[in-house]
């Protein structure tokens, strides 16, 4: 009789009565020692691998800002000098294993500045013709060219406008003559940028698409003439343009310029004297910036970075050390019921 009347009686289930079977990890010295030893050893292993790999990567950095008067590019660093070319000589002592990546680097350049980053028109860059005529106002003030009948700018915005425009040519000095090292400019940008995100309008020839627009103020050439040698490398899918548009995360950055993968240099740059011919256009002194070129080969872990390897080694050894400390603690303070 009693049982039937209890309509209000709560369900006696493990969930409602909070009696679900539970795993209760205990954080105490005795239990974590083996775990720590294992983690420590694994970390040391990873650390060694990373460190060795990083060590094997060769990097050559050459600053060509031309701050010092003795520097070959000193004259070019004056922003008033236009179309300046400077020559830079350097020597490679041993074979620079290939494939060699050739980067240009900028220091103290804030591509991550918020307003700078917003100053572009993704729709225009993905080939939307209506945005050619009226670019998004996010591009302001690089939206319309006020000196040119307020014509829309394509590509508009500050990022595109400030595109890096130094060009490089590398020669190997062989017996007094200069031998051009062939650069591979294909595939230096992200595949998705080149194939998906950035698109040229479906207008042929490409030049017509840009009718009624003007080139960015800072640019010497319009977008459709960026690479005269390869018609497929023009407009918004120009590799250099794509590389530039992918904004660097930090103020000191490098961007891939070319790869050296062809001809005699497939295996790398052999030891010898080299000459770098720089068309010096990009002003950096206005913000105390630096320009450099970087030669580097890469491994599975990317560019040279010893930090991660060292970090793994340090943390690994710390874990092992801590497990020793724990052992002492355990011996002294073990909870009596644990035995």
């Amino acid at each position, binding site marked *: 009789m*009693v049982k039937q*009347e*209890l*309509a*209000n009686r*709560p369900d006696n289930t493990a969930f*409602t009565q*909070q009696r679900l*079977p*539970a*795993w*209760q*990890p*205990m*954080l*105490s*010295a005795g239990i974590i020692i083996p775990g720590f030893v294992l983690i420590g050893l694994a*970390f040391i292993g990873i650390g060694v691998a990373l460190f060795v790999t990083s060590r094997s990567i060769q990097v050559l950095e050459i600053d060509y800002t031309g701050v010092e008067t003795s520097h070959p590019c000193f004259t070019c660093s004056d922003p008033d000098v236009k179309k300046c070319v400077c020559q830079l000589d350097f020597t490679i002592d041993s074979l620079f294993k290939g494939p060699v990546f050739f980067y240009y680097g900028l220091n103290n*350049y*804030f*591509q*991550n*500045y*918020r*307003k*700078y*980053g917003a*100053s572009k028109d993704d*729709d225009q860059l993905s080939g939307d013709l209506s945005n050619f005529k009226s670019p998004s106002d*996010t591009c302001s003030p690089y939206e319309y060219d006020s000196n040119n009948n307020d014509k829309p700018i394509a590509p508009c915005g500050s990022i595109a406008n400030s595109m890096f425009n130094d060009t490089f040519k590398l020669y190997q000095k062989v017996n007094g003559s200069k031998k051009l090292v062939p650069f591979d400019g294909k595939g230096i940008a992200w595949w*998705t940028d080149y194939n*998906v*995100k950035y698109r040229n309008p479906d207008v042929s020839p490409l030049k017509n698409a840009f009718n009624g627009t003007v080139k960015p103020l800072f640019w010497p050439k319009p977008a459709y003439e960026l690479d005269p040698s390869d018609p497929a490398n023009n407009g918004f899918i120009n590799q250099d343009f794509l590389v530039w548009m*992918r*904004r660097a*995360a*930090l*103020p000191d*950055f*490098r*961007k*891939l310029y070319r790869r050296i993968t062809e001809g005699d240099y497939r295996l790398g740059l052999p030891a010898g004297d080299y000459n770098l011919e720089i068309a010096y256009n990009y*002003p950096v*002194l*206005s913000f*105390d910036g630096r320009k450099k070129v970087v030669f580097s080969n890469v491994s*599975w*872990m*990317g560019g040279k*970075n010893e930090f*991660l390897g060292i*970090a*793994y080694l340090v*943390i690994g050894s710390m874990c092992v050390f801590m497990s020793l400390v*724990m052992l002492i*603690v355990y011996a002294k*303070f*073990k*909870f009596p*019921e644990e035995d």
Partner: protein
Amino acid sequence: MERQRSLMERERPRWWSWQRWGHSACYKKKDRKRKKIKGQERERAVVSNLPYEGLGKAKQPNRYFPGNAIKTTKYTLLLFIPMNLFEQFHRLANIYFVGLAILNFVPVVNAFQPEVALIPICVIFSLTALKDAWEDFRRYQSDRKLNNTPCLVYSRKEKRFTERRWKDVRVGDFVKVVCNEIVPADLLLLHTSDPNGVCHIETSNLDGETTLKQRMVMSGLCISDPEFEPENFNTVVVCEKPNNNLNHFKCYVEKPDKDKVGAGIESLLLRGCKMRNTDHAVGIVVYAGRETKSMLNINRPRYKRSKLERKLNIDVIFCVILLFSMCLVGALGHFLWLQALPSVPPYLVPDSNGHLDSPGLSGFYMFFTMIILLQILIPISLYVSIELVKIGQIYFITNDIDLHDDKTDRRVQCKSLNITEDLGQIQYIFSDKTGTLTENKMVFRRCCIMGTEYPHKENAIRLAVLDGPDSGEEVIFNQRPQPPQTGWSLDTEGDNPDDMQHHHDNQCKSKVKGNAPSDVAFSSPLETEVIPDRKLLQQISRAGSSSGSWKTDPYLDFFLGLAICNTVMVSMATAQRQRVSEFSHSGQANNSLNTLSNLVKSPVSLRHIFTKPKKNRTILEDSVVEEEHFNPPVKKEESGDTNGLQMCTLHAPSDTTATTPDHLSYEAESPDEAALVYAAKAYGFTLLDRTPHSVTVRLPSGDNLVFEVLDTLTFDANRKRMSVLVRHPLTKEYVLYTKGADYAIMELLGTPYAEHLSGKQKNIAAGTQYHLDCYAKDGLRTLCFTKKVVSDKAYERWSVNRLRALAAIDNREELVMDSAVQLEKDLSLLGATGIEDRLQESVPDTIVALREAGIQVWVLTGDKPETAVNIGYACRLLEEEDLVINMSCKNKLECTSILDCTLEEVRRYSEDPRNVGTTQDISLVIDGRTLTMALSLDLQDRFVDLAKRCRSVLCCRVTPLQKSRVVKVVREKLKVMTLAVGDGANDVNMIQAADIGIGLSGQEGMQAVMASDFAISRFKHLKKLLLVHGHWCYTRLANMIIYFFYKNVAYVNLLFWYQFFCGFSGTAMIDYWLMIFFNLFFTSLPPIMFGIMDKDVSAEMLLGVPELYRTGQGEGEYTFLTFWVSMLDAFYQSLVCFFIPYLAYQDSDIDIFTFGTPLNTISLFTILLHLSIEIKAWTVVHWVIMLGSVALYFIVTLAYSAICVTCNPPSNPYWILQSQMADPMFYLLCIITTVVALMPRYMFHVLKNSIAPSPLVQARHLDRLDQSTRDEWMKEWRSFRSTSPVKRHRLSTPPTPTLETPADIYPQPVSPSDFMEDEFTLNDLTENYQRPVQT
């Protein structure tokens, strides 16, 4: 009791009573004056709708009154959105977030796409709105159901009652309610099927009281015809404006002859009540719909802010300060950075005019941009999450099967939804005694008539046997045995009933056990039966045999008083209600009673005692029927057994029982009354029937006496007594029977009873008082009974005043009380009764556990100090080795000196180097008068200081107002968390004054429950509610809140650190959508689950080791320190999470969002793994939610990166996670960063748990052991603890000049170890200390 004001006009010429009232000049003048002042506002006039039936709405006289349809919904369908938004904007936090969202629309300062910034606030708003809409919809549904309930309304067209829906009922309609139907609106009762014009209602829907209440037809209206014709009712009903007082109503009907007939609450049927015991009743609707008293009594759930939430708000302010300083750093940094630039770099974007803001202005703007960027530092979803967590916690509390009471089928109710965690921080409990610690089931134990004590030994034995099976259900963890019931047993003579009890226990238990009732429910026959005292029976027989004793026999008068002087209703057992059904034929009851009857050796046969000449039988014309009805069995029994002794008639032929009073069931408003009526019945004075105007009592001789009830002076808290004025059918005397508290009666005594006749100069009052004190010491509730014969002249004089008082509308209560006081004087003492109110099960265990949990328990009671002290010992509020300070002072000076002396003594004790590490167990007993002095402003501090040092405090004879004052003073002076628990209306003040009010839904109605935050049904539930749920709720919520703060800081700081590398320009390296998702989806569920379900220690452990509760008291786990430690940890972790990837990607060609993605991922892992360190118990739910969150992160982010090609322009998430996940560096980075980030916290936990484990950690260790080892450990733990304070130096007795009973209150010191050894020695010892030496 007030409700049952007896109206005596019916028997009197109507012209007399009502004309007097009608022509009372005084009244009329007053009335007019009031009308002038307030106009019509205080009254409403209601006329019958019937003459206007079918007319247009404009012609309806009652059109201004609302209809009976109710609407409890907050919103309407159309206005839901604006109204809900308006509601939500009342929250400061919401305004803050909306302000930020608006700020984002200001172009110079915006940090994100403005539209996107609206998303979080919209989600929060819509979640809250959804919750509100769902609640409102449920209200709507229940409204609709209620509004469409059918009821019977009179229709003039059809000349009968027709079925209509509740919502169509209007003021002025005539509604007929049939048995067991619910009253649809507030009705003025005009007619019932009962010839006496009464009907019964059950108000359990309204106030939870399950006792029947009697309502009677408005007197003075000529509508007592058998068939009521609503159409003939053409008078105006004038009643007061709607109000929410359920116990008060005033109205009068103006008859055509200008006479006014008044009526009160006794003629009002309240909406929501159930009609009982009456075939049907008809009334006119005076209040409908939302104006009904029950609707006006509906309160929204109370909003209380918990202590934790108050602290949390302080920390939110800290967060605001932190946010502002971080923004200031950003603004300043931006300014300096701009300042340091030699000229304009290409990446600085001028405005459309080619103009660049000055560094100062840019810095200023940047401040606001930073606020937008770092806004999550103020945890946006914290408030919503807390609400969700509390809903979950309440779900688990209300679903706890241990907090469900099988007897009443009630769960624990949470009325305040947001103070669950306060349950885990309680430091002081203030408890009522009656009904809270005790059952409030009264059992008659002993009585004293004319100064002679009748101990009722056999009855005591019977009750002791009943207790047998109960005491077997001791809770496992209670090592010390419950103080034995011997403290209760009374013995004035040489032979020890305890020995007998032990002796019989074994015999009886074995017999009882075989078919012992599974639940000894309220008023089960076992409890209501009383075995009469032999000596007393002989006395009665002597009195009965002497003829002509009607006038002066004190024994007869005493029992008549017992039977008459009450408001107990008699209902037939055929009524559906089972609760109070008095007797069943079940074998179990008979069996055990048989056993018991055997115990009473050779019961005196009453066979011949009450045989009286037939001519003496009583008789009032209208009771002939009843008399005839009851007579035959009596006659039959003349030869067999009388019904004088119920227990002796068990073997009576069953065919007679069908018509004997065994089928009566008593409906008492207070359990005392029922107990007394049952006691009277046991001696043969059976209350057979009670109508408003008569009481029928069957005498031991089998005759029925019908007393005409002239008036009932109901009980009130000021008088502390009640009286019934009857006309004795035989002597034709006006007799006033009064019963009440001893102090309320003793001062009113006049001539001793029958002094002039007996000639004995016996000091009855002194003798009775002596016994009363003995009763009180034994924890019995005492009542004195008196008789007074009122002369005809005096009665007439008095009744005039009385009527005037009853008819008054102004000050009616006072006048009525004054008139009662006028009559209640010069009383003759008959005797006194002692009623036992038994402790609820597991009360001592609960109190001990609560005390071990570091909670100070105070008991506040209206009882006498002796009663209270005794109950205190019984429920282990006071222990034998305690030093009990008794404060009972006559004046303030005395009070001050006691306080000072005691304090001095106590201080000296604690400063004594010998007492380092020991605790003193002082208990304070204080009475109401002294309490008033102690709580006066100048003594308050001293009193609180003393009370703070006491282990328990017992306040006796306190009023409801004092109760709340005590709570307030302690709460404010000591700044502690208080909890008040009570069951009656007198506890409401206290319940509302405390931080947490707990109502016990017991025998005394629901007022306490209505006012409470939590409602439980047994006191013992408090133990699990506090020790387990309180602890859990608190630790869960505290940890969840700390975690929430940590989570937001840890995440937002990533953005902050990045500002140092982007010229403080407010760039976010994480896609904004992903940031929103991160907070809303990826990391929101785990902390909520953590707050609802984490279980640091098992319930068994928390109950077994109440000390664990102390972790939550005072500051608890959520302190200034824990908050800032977790903030520091958040800073550290964010530093690690930012700078390890930063160093790893330094000087590379990484782009912003490729850099941000591992940061986001690492952050997710760190935040979730941080939570895993904090989670103490992993159930399936934990695993699913934790792994689900990680899976959700990857699925959503991958999908988003795959779909979003050009969306959300400034960011560029396309294919980024995919390319990152193809890079081994990503995983290596994630692993090491997470490890480094969590290492310190992990190591800290490990080292702390190993080197200095907190009690909670130790308990968790024990939890992992198997059951038997755990119990062993627990035992060891407890014994270690309980033996530690053995060597204590006792305080010397402080001077207490007014100490009344030093022998009882200062037991000799006993070393606890002495009696820890075995149960029996303990019993013996406590017996000695508990039982006062009696003569």
